[in-house]
């Protein structure tokens, strides 16, 4: 099943920087789609189009179509808040909100109007368990979200997204600020989570891309150079440029 169908998506920022050029891609549900490539290639812009976080940026022109479950989400009349609840996002630096651990996880639900304490409690616990963080923090849920390690903070951010029970989880270089142990935890977590969610991951290095990819998309200077399933991409890339990047000839 296709979760996203992107057709001819082009974006130009107000400084006349063309960030994406004619992107065509289909994103499969219940799989990990990896977006990789050198910095400035348009990965982050692409992710921020999918949950319309790009509305905040100075976009000059945006053309094309992004279908999410068959609905065009670039439609200006679309309920962006609802969309963002269905498409969760984890950022490259852990950004706990300036609230307690509990409130961080419950934040999205409370904003969505959930007031029932019991439901919130069980949702928070479920989300923290799913993010394999519960055992480490269950006795200090009222501590600040900053009072835990970087790796824990990043899993907290993931739990915060999971609490909303989204359909899609997007992660923009989620482990770039983490140590190898925490990175391994997040990676094994993602492999489990793909049973239930559609995952789009922009890793910060090729190794992670190769480890995680069910499908892989190589972005270079705003262009989608190659899109294939993970094995094909990393074992026998078709395009010369993806080949050069994967083998480390540039980047």
């Amino acid at each position, binding site marked *: 099943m296709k979760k996203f169908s992107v057709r001819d998506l082009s974006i130009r920022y107000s400084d006349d920087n063309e960030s994406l050029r004619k992107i065509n891609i289909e994103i499969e549900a219940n799989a990990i789609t990896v977006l990789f490539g050198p910095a400035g290639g348009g990965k982050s812009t692409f992710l921020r189009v999918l949950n319309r976080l790009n509305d905040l940026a100075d976009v000059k022109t945006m053309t094309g179509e992004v279908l999410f479950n068959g609905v065009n989400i670039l439609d200006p009349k679309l309920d962006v808040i609802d969309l*963002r*609840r269905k498409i969760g996002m984890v*950022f490259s630096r852990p*950004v706990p909100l*300036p609230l307690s651990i509990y409130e961080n996880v419950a934040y999205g639900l409370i904003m969505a109007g959930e007031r029932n304490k019991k439901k919130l409690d069980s949702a928070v616990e479920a989300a923290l368990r799913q993010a394999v963080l519960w055992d480490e923090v269950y006795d200090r849920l009222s501590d600040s979200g900053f*009072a835990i390690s970087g790796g824990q903070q990043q899993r907290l951010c993931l739990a915060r997204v999971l609490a909303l029970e989204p359909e899609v989880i997007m992660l923009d270089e989620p482990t770039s600020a983490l140590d190898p142990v925490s990175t391994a935890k997040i990676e094994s977590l993602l492999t489990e989570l793909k049973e239930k969610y559609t995952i789009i991951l922009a890793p910060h290095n090729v190794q992670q891309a190769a480890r995680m990819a069910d499908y892989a998309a190589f972005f270079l200077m705003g262009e989608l150079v190659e899109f294939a399933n993970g094995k094909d991409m990393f074992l026998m890339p078709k395009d010369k440029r993806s080949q050069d990047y994967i083998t480390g000839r540039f980047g």
Partner: protein
Amino acid sequence: MKENRMAPKKQIGDTVITSIIKVCGYSSILFVGLILVFLLKEGLPALKDVPITSLFSIRWYPIEGLFGILPLIFGTLLVTISATLIALPFGLGTAIFISEVAPRWIKEILKPIVEILAGIPSVVLGFIGILVIVPFFRKFLDLPTGLTAFTGAVLLGLIAIPTIVSVAEDALNTVPPGYRQAGLALGATRWQTIWGVTVPAAKTGILTAVMLGIGRALGETMAVMMVTGNAPVLPSGLNAIFEPVRTMTATIASEMGEVATGSQHYQVLFLIGILLFLLSLVINITASAVSTKQRKRAERILS
């Protein structure tokens, strides 16, 4: 060889600059200390020479030897607190608007305008107060005189707003954009993100802004002297705010010129100065206590 000769020279320059900086630093501490000593030396004898019962009576009439400072303290508190209540919502609202809501071109116009407003001499604002605000309130609220505590509070509020806006806006601006994005990406509306994430994250800076605003209102003399009616009486009842008052600062400013040095009146004016000093000290200590508490928490978390 050449390098060997250079090294001591560099060290001498270093020592000279370090000592100059040290002198500058210590001298500002010294000046504050000297001001305090002078205030205490001139003001404390009042406690000995003027009977306490007179000091804490409700009549300020120095010519008759009546030095009741209660009406002055009351006037200062009334005007300062009301001014803060007026300035706070407007100041924070404007800061949030400039930093979070306004499109960039409005932001780029508004911010310098606010900063220019903060620099207008208060006597000019007092002048506008006398010519515009005072007659307006007299007619609009149907009062015997427009020179009231309320007029002073409104004017002081106007004076404090640019300070609050400017500092609070800087605080909001330093909130990492990641917070806003995280809030929005969780499906919070813009307003929920501002209120639930951005403002709490900038709490310390906003508090500093409020304290600076209160300090500005507390220390303001000229404008307040021009529009509050200068009547050192203890107003009674709920409509006290619509009656003339006189603040501590205005009293010192208007009477210091005509007292005999060393007289009781002179000493009491300095005593009022000491009280003002204590008031602003309390405000500053509160502000820094709150922000160090937060900083300590941050340090504990980072370590």
